[in-house]
């Protein structure tokens, strides 16, 4: 497996930003009442993460270390504003539902932490793939939660009626979102325990 | 007469005193062999000064504590030292003990009474020390030390503990009934030693006869000097006899946590100790006999026995006609006493009673999770939170319990008594203390 693919895989499962690193969980509960919302915000995050990673990687020698955090914030805010302008043109309906959180991507800890930990040290290509991996990991997390909540909450998937009734409406409410994430995290822990035999310690949140 | 009581908490366990409270003190014939452990109480382990096969007299000193805090041990029979070897011990599992085979032909030693009022304070103290007297209520703190408070302390009151709030136990009750004069005289000796004038004897109201008798005795002897001995009835409530609770109940003074009674001008003595002091001072009789309650429904015959220190429980049981359905032996009261694993242990100076409990009297079930009913917090006389301590200890965080004031806990057992989940809260408290001390 090439190292680039490994970077993507790494972001997808072993260091999944939501379930393993426990970073940027606000949107994980907030927008995941349906797969579509999760997908849209996930794509936005992929976009911002990839572009910010690349930007920072390219200009890393130019950015003075003492101002790196403000510089990163500006870079991220730049790409967030860009996607915030593009999304409503592409998909106005969904944008309405995830609008606030698209703007809030600026403060998603996952993005700035990848810039700090990876992109500021590595060359362009790996940074690109790392950004892609983290972005997809985020996307995957959002879609998984979204799918579970949409299916159990409304009996639908991607807006298509599957069951024809609402099995457990609570799933689309705030409480249900918290429960679902808690249970998915526990499942991840359990899988790790089954595979590695080690008792897992869930990551600290920031 | 409404009795006084302590500030908060407390419980009303079933008394079970009816088993033995009407039985007069009975002298048990000396056993053929006594086992005198070298550690009987608080303080250093005594060093034997006798050798194997050496002949000893009743009342002869056989072991002493030279330098450290402690009290000497006297032989309780006349006979020959058979061995000095480790034997089962009530609290220490095994402990070095002097074993003496009694000489059946030797007559019991007799003592003369002389007037203690002639003696000086120092002479009185010396006699108490010679007799090896320790506090007979519980831990057994050497009495001569206790009666020499540090120079700074301003003691003004002697409190005699006649509460006997532990269920089953009737020793002090019987002593007060049968030897009221000895108790009151003992109190006056202590007053003289301390150089104070005032003594309060606290007695629970369930011992109305004892209150009567003691009142009379106190009144009768009052003309002999200018000291005041007063009897105060107290409500029937456990742990009325605990030092801090007793002091508050009788004087409304609170001993602060980590403090001692003389911080508030009080010295507390137990009824049995007071009587032993009287005997030691006016008869020069060392402490080698002990009145103890032998009770519990597993015993065929209950009794308040005067036994020689060092008598094995097995001999006592035999004397009292054996047991049936015995599930637990408790040395001391059922609330604070400790269960013993063997019947081959001796009666010591601090044994105030031994209970032989059958399955209906004690509960051996397993404990469950805390349901936060809060009954333990209501029962705790010190205002602590036993349930929290228990939860912390169970979670392996016993070292964090100091905030609950765990060192104020004197392990009275009220919390565990009321706990519906049968949690061993006293044990948790002990573990918590150990954990804190370990962390330093």
């Amino acid at each position, binding site marked *: 497996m090439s190292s680039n693919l490994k970077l993507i895989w790494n972001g997808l499962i072993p260091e999944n930003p939501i379930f393993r690193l426990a970073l940027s969980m606000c949107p994980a509960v907030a927008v995941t009442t349906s797969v579509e919302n999760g997908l849209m915000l996930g794509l936005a995050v992929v976009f911002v993460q990839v572009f910010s990673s690349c930007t920072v990687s390219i*200009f890393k020698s*130019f*950015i*003075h270390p*003492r*101002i790196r955090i*403000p*510089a990163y914030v*500006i*870079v991220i*805010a*730049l790409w967030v*504003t*860009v996607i915030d*302008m*593009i999304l*409503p*043109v592409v998909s*106005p*309906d969904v944008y309405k539902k995830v609008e606030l959180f698209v703007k809030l991507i600026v403060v998603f800890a996952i993005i700035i932490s990848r810039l700090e930990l990876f992109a500021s040290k590595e060359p362009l290509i790996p940074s690109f793939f790392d950004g892609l991996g983290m972005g997809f990991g985020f996307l995957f997390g959002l879609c998984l939660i979204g799918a579970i909540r949409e299916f159990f909450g409304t009996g639908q998937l991607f807006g298509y009626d599957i069951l024809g009734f*609402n099995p457990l*409406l609570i799933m*689309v*409410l705030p409480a249900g979102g918290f429960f679902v994430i808690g249970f998915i995290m526990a499942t991840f822990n359990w899988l790790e325990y089954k595979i590695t035999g080690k008792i897992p310690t869930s990551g600290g949140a920031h | 007469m409404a009795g006084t009581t302590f500030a908060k908490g407390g419980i009303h366990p079933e008394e079970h005193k009816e088993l033995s409270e009407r039985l007069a003190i009975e002298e048990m014939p000396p056993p053929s062999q006594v086992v005198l452990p070298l550690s009987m109480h608080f303080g250093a382990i005594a060093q034997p000064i006798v050798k194997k096969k050496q002949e000893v007299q009743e009342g002869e000193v056989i072991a002493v504590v030279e330098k450290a805090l402690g009290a000497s041990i006297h032989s309780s029979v006349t006979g020959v030292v058979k061995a000095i070897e480790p034997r089962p011990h009530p609290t220490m599992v095994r402990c070095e003990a002097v074993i003496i085979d009694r000489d059946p032909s030797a007559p019991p030693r007799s003592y003369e009474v002389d007037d203690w009022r002639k003696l000086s304070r120092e002479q009185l103290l010396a006699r108490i020390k010679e007799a090896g007297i320790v506090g007979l209520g519980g831990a057994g703190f050497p009495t001569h030390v206790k009666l020499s408070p540090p120079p700074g302390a301003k003691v003004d009151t002697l409190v005699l503990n006649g509460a006997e709030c532990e269920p089953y136990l009737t020793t002090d009750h019987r002593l007060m009934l049968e030897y009221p004069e000895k108790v009151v005289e003992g109190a006056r000796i202590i007053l003289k030693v301390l150089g104070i004038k005032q003594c309060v004897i606290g007695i629970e109201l369930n011992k109305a006869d004892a209150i009567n008798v003691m009142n009379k005795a106190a009144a009768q002897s009052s003309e002999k000097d200018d000291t005041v001995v007063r009897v105060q009835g107290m409500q029937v409530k456990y742990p009325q006899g605990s030092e801090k609770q007793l002091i508050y109940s009788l004087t409304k003074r609170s001993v602060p946590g980590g403090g001692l009674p003389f911080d508030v001008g009080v010295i507390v003595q137990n009824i049995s100790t007071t009587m032993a002091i009287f005997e030691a001072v006016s008869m020069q009789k060392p402490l080698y006999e002990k009145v103890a309650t032998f009770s519990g429904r597993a015993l065929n015959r209950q009794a308040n026995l005067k036994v020689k220190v060092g008598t094995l429980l097995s001999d006592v049981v035999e004397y009292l006609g054996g047991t049936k359905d015995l599930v637990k032996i408790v040395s001391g009261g059922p609330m604070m006493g400790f269960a013993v694993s063997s019947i081959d242990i001796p009666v010591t100076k601090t044994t105030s009673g031994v209970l032989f409990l059958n399955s209906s009297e004690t509960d051996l079930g397993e404990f469950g999770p805390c349901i936060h009913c809060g009954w333990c917090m209501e029962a705790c006389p010190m205002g602590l939170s036993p349930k929290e301590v228990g939860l912390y200890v169970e979670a392996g965080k016993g070292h964090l319990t100091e905030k609950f004031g765990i060192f104020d806990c004197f392990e009275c057992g009220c919390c565990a008594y009321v706990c519906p989940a049968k949690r061993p809260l006293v044990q948790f408290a002990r573990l918590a203390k150990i954990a804190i001390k370990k962390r330093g």
Partner: protein
Amino acid sequence: MKEIFKITLSLTVVCIVASLILGFVYAKTEHARKLNDEKIEQQTIQSLLGYGAGAKVPSDLKVYPVYRYVITTEKGETVLGYVLPIKDNKVVLAEMDLSGNPIRVTPISVELSALSDKAARDNAINAVLPKGSKSIYAQTIFVADQGGKRIGYVVPGVTQGFKSFIKLMVSLNPDFTVTGVAVTSAEEDPGLGAEIQKSFFRNQFVGKTIDLLKKLTVVKEPLPPNYAAALDPAKAKAKGLTPEQVKEIKEKHLKDNIYALTGATISSRAMTNGVVNTVKKFVYRLDKLNEAIKKEQLSVAF
């Protein structure tokens, strides 16, 4: 010193580059975004008029907005002002007093399409009003015109729902019979009041004439199952109901009151009141407006 200069420079460059990119993207997307907003509104109106998803909108169908303003004149009187599109793509401001008597008509020099932006419209109106008078925007209604004939109206309304306001739109045909109801925003309880957005509830209003509406109430009886199926196109299809059957069932229940949503009577009643009040107010005003147009002999576009 050199270091600080370097830092400042690099941060400045970062900022300048960022603003340049942003400005560029903003310029590129701004127009598209506005168009999109309008498109959503257009779609709602079209679907209310019966041209929902998939249906082809006739080329001669035109939807004209009519903006209503409340104007306080320089003398302190309150009058109504309607921004009316007239023939040849021109716009006038028609003022009338509260009982509907026309006061004056002022032409506005801005094109109708430019008026959809509220700020631009306010400016245009204030420009033609005498000094000292104030105008407050009140409402926009839409008039649909096909081949020079009015074929319907779309009226927005608002009503106090269970939790917050329910914004709705009602479409009417020229006889003031309801042809459609849409909920544009609501925050009712999911699973309960939020069901007002479902077609089986909204479509209960369709077909009700103004006379029926005036006495319309809410009943707490369960919705008859076949009526429910007929009201929901997807369900009707699933149940295999032919369009004729659907029509028949709907006609049978036409005079029924509104069946309340189970467990959400308050939302149902709020919605019903909202629709009825919106229509009643609109009919009252349109009457006055039509009279005024006649009196002033305006050649309105619709």
